[in-house]
């Protein structure tokens, strides 16, 4: 086992020292992804702004002001919509969230520290946990800003304090004497020049009374299958395949080099079995392919706004694709006798496979006849699996088909390659 690992590490070390191999597996695919991604209409800087739709179901002055504020916030790209439109946009993935200001929002926002706070309903896709948290935080922040605004405009706020006070006295006379006293003093305070000079937030208020300036209720809308968010969603899966291409060329060559350079003799006279030698070399190829796929993906995620819909499915897709191409490496290596032979046979076999498989022309823009033809290429199934996990929102069941095909390719090419290597 340790000898198998030693072979794998040796091959990986050699790989990292072959400059051309590094270029074609790491740099070149990224160039392809970025150039074509930009051409296909990738946004250069993926917007950190959340696209949302704002629905004002209240229509009062208070809700209008709140909606207006949302529309102008830097954190959002917000549009106004009806409830139906907003939910549809979320379902289609055009908007991350629908923010709905419920009826009664205006009245509730007149009340301070007591009564029902104004209510906001937020509809998002349940998978978008990070965006949900961020949205909720931003909404609560905006709710709290209302309190600050009060102190920024003492004269205007005095009226709402008085309203709150009178409502409180009318509904719950004498039940919250502390709050009554506070609001009375606040009323007085807002009339003073001190308040006009501007003060910070009322620190004591929140801690004495369990009352929030805003309630946010989270609702789920299942997002439907959509198109890619931008060009990079399409070109990065392709780039992962081009990176694999580089690995296929490099590692199929290492098999042949061992034979040509005579080092295979050394491996064969050692106590290692033939299968152990093949296992070691295959392991190196597997690890390399896996790592370069992850590398390309990581660049896409970190800098180009690629947002995989499902990480577990993507991992499965990457693993299956890696296995398939290790088999292809073995088969390719068994076809050529010399390094030169690999240099010729490799591209000759791989290029058509890549071209019809959608590594060059994206599957989504292929004419129907070509899409059908592409099914004979393992490259297509790898891309389908990657895209399925990145933006096609595949379910586990949908992911089974491409992954099973990739594993079948792996098994067939591996078996054939091993048999031919034995000869």
């Amino acid at each position, binding site marked *: 086992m340790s000898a198998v690992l*030693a072979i794998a590490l*040796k091959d990986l*070390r*050699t790989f990292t*020292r072959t400059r051309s191999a590094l270029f074609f597996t790491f740099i070149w695919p990224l160039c392809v992804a970025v150039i074509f991604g930009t051409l296909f209409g990738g946004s250069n800087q993926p917007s950190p702004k959340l696209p949302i739709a704002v629905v004002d179901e209240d229509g009062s002055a208070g809700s209008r002001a709140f909606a207006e504020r949302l529309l102008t916030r830097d954190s959002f790209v917000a549009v106004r919509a009806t409830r139906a439109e907003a939910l549809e946009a979320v379902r289609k993935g055009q908007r991350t969230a629908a923010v709905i200001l419920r009826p009664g929002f205006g009245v509730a926002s007149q009340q301070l520290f007591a009564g029902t706070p104004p209510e906001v309903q937020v509809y998002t896709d349940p998978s978008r946990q990070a965006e949900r948290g961020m949205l909720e935080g931003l909404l609560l922040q905006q709710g709290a800003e209302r309190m600050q605004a009060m102190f920024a405009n003492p004269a205007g706020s005095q009226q709402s304090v008085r309203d709150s006070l009178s409502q409180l006295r009318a509904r719950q006379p004498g039940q919250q004497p502390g709050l009554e006293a506070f609001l009375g003093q606040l009323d007085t305070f807002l009339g003073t020049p001190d308040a006009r000079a501007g003060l910070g937030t009322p620190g004591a208020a929140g801690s004495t009374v369990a009352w929030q300036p805003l309630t946010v209720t989270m609702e789920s809308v299942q997002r439907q299958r959509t198109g890619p968010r931008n060009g990079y969603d399409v070109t990065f899966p392709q780039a992962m395949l081009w990176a694999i291409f580089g690995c296929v060329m490099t590692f199929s060559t290492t098999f042949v080099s061992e034979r040509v*350079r*005579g*080092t295979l*003799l*050394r491996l064969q006279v050692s106590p290692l079995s033939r299968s152990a030698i093949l296992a070691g070399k295959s392991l190196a190829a597997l690890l390399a392919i896996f790592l370069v796929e992850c590398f390309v993906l990581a660049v896409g995620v970190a800098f180009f706004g690629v947002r995989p819909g499902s990480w577990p499915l993507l991992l499965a897709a990457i693993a299956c694709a890696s296995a398939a191409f290790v088999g292809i490496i073995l088969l390719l290596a068994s076809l050529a006798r010399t390094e030169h032979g690999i240099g010729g046979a490799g591209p000759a076999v791989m290029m058509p496979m890549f071209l019809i498989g959608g590594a060059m022309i994206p599957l989504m823009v292929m004419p129907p006849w070509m899409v059908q033809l592409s099914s004979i290429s393992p490259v297509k199934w790898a891309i389908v699996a990657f895209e399925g996990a990145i933006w096609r929102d595949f379910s586990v069941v949908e992911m089974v088909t491409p992954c099973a095909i990739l594993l079948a390719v792996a098994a067939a090419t591996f078996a054939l390659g091993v048999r031919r290597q034995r000869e």
Partner: protein
Amino acid sequence: MLTLTNIVKRYGSRVAVDDLSLAVHPGEILGLLGPNGAGKSTTMHVAVGLLRADSGTVTIGEHGSPTAPAARRVLGLAPQSLAVYDLLTADENLRFFGELYGLAGAALRARVEWALTLVGLQDRRRDRVQGYSGGMKRRLNIAAALLHDPQLVLLDEPTVGVDPQSRNAIFDSIVQLRQAGRTVVYSTHYMEEAVRLCDRVAIIDAGKVLALDTVDGLLRAHGGSPVLRARVAGEEIAIETRDPLTELNRLSATAPVESFRVDAPTLEQVFLSLTGRTLRD
């Protein structure tokens, strides 16, 4: 230690090894001396199990077939073609080959150290092999075969392209191996190497062992008589004789001998008398 019995190996219609039998004794250095294409490398590859003979058997000591895992552990081969990784350093190459034999940790470090010292590559150990001279690569090629301390070492023309000084160093290390009780099979087409190093020499041509004996034994049996070369009265004379002194006396009685020398028989003559061709053809 190694017994080859009636080995036949064909490449297509060409017979590379032709009914060859050979027994290597434990602790000896056995030379395989023959011209290009004689079948030395093929014989070695059959002996270590890299090639399957078309017929005949190979036995490695008590381990039987060379492909048995136990037999592989006692075998070390330095192939004729350099078999090291260019992109790795000498250190990394040797560590890797050691790991193939299950060496690890301090034991591996010690063996790598020993092997580097043996072939005099300590100061270049951290350089990548692609920057080595041909002779340095060849020395590393030998070191890689010895790393796991094999009982039976097969060196296939290990000194091709090595300068005289390094060659001497390699000879010294091979002699050291014999002193340590290792068995060595050494192929070459240089007679001088066979004479200097080998306890016994097998003369190989066209895939057959033509003769197998100590160098003295071979010379006695196949070398013919020494040749007396003299210059007598301005005339070059060469006389093949078992008794050059008597011949010289006889010559000096007839005319003054201006100069003379006695050429003792060489393995070249042995080869000539066995094959009718010279070794260097």
